[in-house]
């Protein structure tokens, strides 16, 4: 059952091949037996109660395609009555009193939540080695990273521990782990999905999205997750189309832009070969390929590592040990309470980014760093605008290499370079996807698609057509 897609499981439930309780128990057993460390909290009792309610609903003929599908929820989304830690010791004891809009929408769709997935603390990381709850292992090779920060979500889908999962992408945190774990991950246009109740890292970049086995499943889940929310001031008042409608459209005549900057030195040869084979597959389907240039994308890393830490230093200032979360014991005074609660509660990478942001926003440095980075961000966005006058979609690698060894990247700058191909889409607010496109060193390689604003439907169509011609998305790790 755990290799089936949403579409296949929905059919199985409808045909009564298995009940929702049996399906849920199957996944819970797999989570229990797995050693991927993909979950922070397993909500087994709640899941079985939900599953029983769903079985009753199915019996009364009241089911939609997502009714009873078991999924894993990234631990960054607030879930009423269930611990929401964001992978941090700071929120280890936090049980949210309310649901994020995304959680509420998934509940309303009668999905079954299996638990909350492991993640880099406050979504800061590219390897899922920054979690208070330990590192997640890649289902394809347990000595490798799953990617971050939605590493637990990616590993849970790839490892057959959930049918799909939610993720968030601030600098590539859906696409990069999806790529390294061999699944389909979609980061929609900024503002497409509500950020209400999603613990904020960098507010002008964070965006939620689905992590699934196939593009078709991603379309089905996005239908539920997307939409305007007046509780989120960054939510876009944009009509939500039915993302499944155009999956089968022909892509003959599609123009694909390959940015030369995405194929420069630093890209692993085998990864590059896989990407080019995938592009050839599109050509065989009638697409036209052009070389394009995103000259300012080479500045995406320094721009991102100013903008995101500045926003995080502001967002995380609320965590001071007073109102909720971790509070240091035996403090001397209020200042000591702040200092020690934050120092003991936050991990190393979070502290590092808070320090970068604090410095970059301090008097005398604001113009040189934050304002400059925001101007460069504009240049990056303008590059995309020009390219989308010539092509329908941009393609390239997601990550310069396949999943690297756990613990092998020690210095932060080298780790930040892992995001080189994903960051620019976040800075511009554009939608992006990763779809399985081959293997290198026996590990998955993801193909990145970047589309124009609000072109999720087009991206899903392109990805679906690729998945009708290839079987990379059907490969599963042998032992989980």
């Amino acid at each position, binding site marked *: 059952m755990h290799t089936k897609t949403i579409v296949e499981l929905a059919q199985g439930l409808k045909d009564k091949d298995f009940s929702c309780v049996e399906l849920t128990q199957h996944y819970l057993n797999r989570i229990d037996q797995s050693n991927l460390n993909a979950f922070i909290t397993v909500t087994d009792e709640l899941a079985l109660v939900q599953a029983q309610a769903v079985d009753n609903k199915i019996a009364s003929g009241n089911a939609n395609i997502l009714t009873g599908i078991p999924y894993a929820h990234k631990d960054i989304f607030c879930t009423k009555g269930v611990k929401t830690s964001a992978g941090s010791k700071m929120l280890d004891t*936090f*049980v*949210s*009193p309310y649901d994020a809009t995304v959680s509420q929408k998934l509940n309303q769709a009668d999905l079954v939540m299996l638990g909350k997935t492991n993640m880099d603390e406050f979504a800061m990381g590219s390897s899922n080695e920054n979690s208070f709850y330990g590192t997640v292992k890649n289902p394809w090779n347990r000595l490798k990273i799953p990617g971050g920060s939605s590493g637990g979500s990616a590993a849970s889908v790839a490892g057959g521990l959930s049918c799909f999962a939610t993720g968030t992408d601030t600098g590539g945190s859906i696409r990069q782990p999806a790529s390294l774990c061999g699944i389909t991950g979609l980061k929609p*246009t*900024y*503002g497409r999905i509500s950020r209400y109740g999603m613990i904020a890292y960098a507010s*002008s*970049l964070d965006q939620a999205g689905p992590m699934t086995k196939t593009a078709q499943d991603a379309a089905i889940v996005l239908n539920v997750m997307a939409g305007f929310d007046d509780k989120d*001031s*960054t939510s*876009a008042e944009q009509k939500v189309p039915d993302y499944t409608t155009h999956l089968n459209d022909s892509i003959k005549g599609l123009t694909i832009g390959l940015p030369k900057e995405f194929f420069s030195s630093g890209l692993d040869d085998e990864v590059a070969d896989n990407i080019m084979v995938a592009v050839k597959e599109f050509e065989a389907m009638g697409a036209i390929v052009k070389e394009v240039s995103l000259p*300012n994308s080479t500045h995406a*890393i*320094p*721009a991102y*590592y*100013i903008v995101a830490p500045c926003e995080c230093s502001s967002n995380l*200032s609320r965590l*001071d040990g*007073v*109102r*909720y*979360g971790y*509070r240091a014991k035996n*403090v001397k*005074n*209020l200042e000591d*309470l*702040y*200092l020690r609660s*934050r*120092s003991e509660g*936050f991990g190393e990478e979070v*502290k*590092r980014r*808070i*320090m*970068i942001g*604090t*410095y970059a926003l*301090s008097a005398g440095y604001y113009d*040189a*760093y934050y*304002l*400059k*980075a925001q*101007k*460069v*961000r*504009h*240049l990056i966005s303008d590059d995309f605008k020009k390219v989308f006058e010539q092509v329908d979609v941009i393609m390239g690698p997601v990550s310069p290499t396949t999943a690297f060894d756990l613990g092998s990247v020690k*210095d*932060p*700058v080298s780790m*930040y370079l892992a995001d080189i191909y994903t960051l620019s889409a976040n*800075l*511009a*607010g554009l939608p992006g996807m990763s779809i399985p496109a081959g293997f290198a060193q026996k590990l998955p390689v993801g193909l990145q698609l970047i589309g124009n*604003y609000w072109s999720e439907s087009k991206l899903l169509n392109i990805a679906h057509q690729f998945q009708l011609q290839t079987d990379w998305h059907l490969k599963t790790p042998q032992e989980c």
Partner: protein
Amino acid sequence: MSLSEEQVSQITYLARLSLNEAQLKDNTQDLNAIFSLVEQLANIETDGIEPMSHPLHMSQRLREDIVAEQDQSVLFQSVAPKTSNGYYLVPTVIE
């Protein structure tokens, strides 16, 4: 530009963080490496370029100045480390 340990110590104070000696040394090294990477932004010509404050160039949406939320202070205070009579309790700061 190179940050000294003293400057990093000041940054940690502003961020309400504290570091021990070894952490301060490591962080000074890491921050200097990160800011060296960031320095390349200085060479980019951005005269006349507007800073991009919102990816969709949206302006802040405003609402009518009316109460839209019900009082949930009891519920929200239920997750606080310590409360009393509707207040958040923190350790004594004035003896």
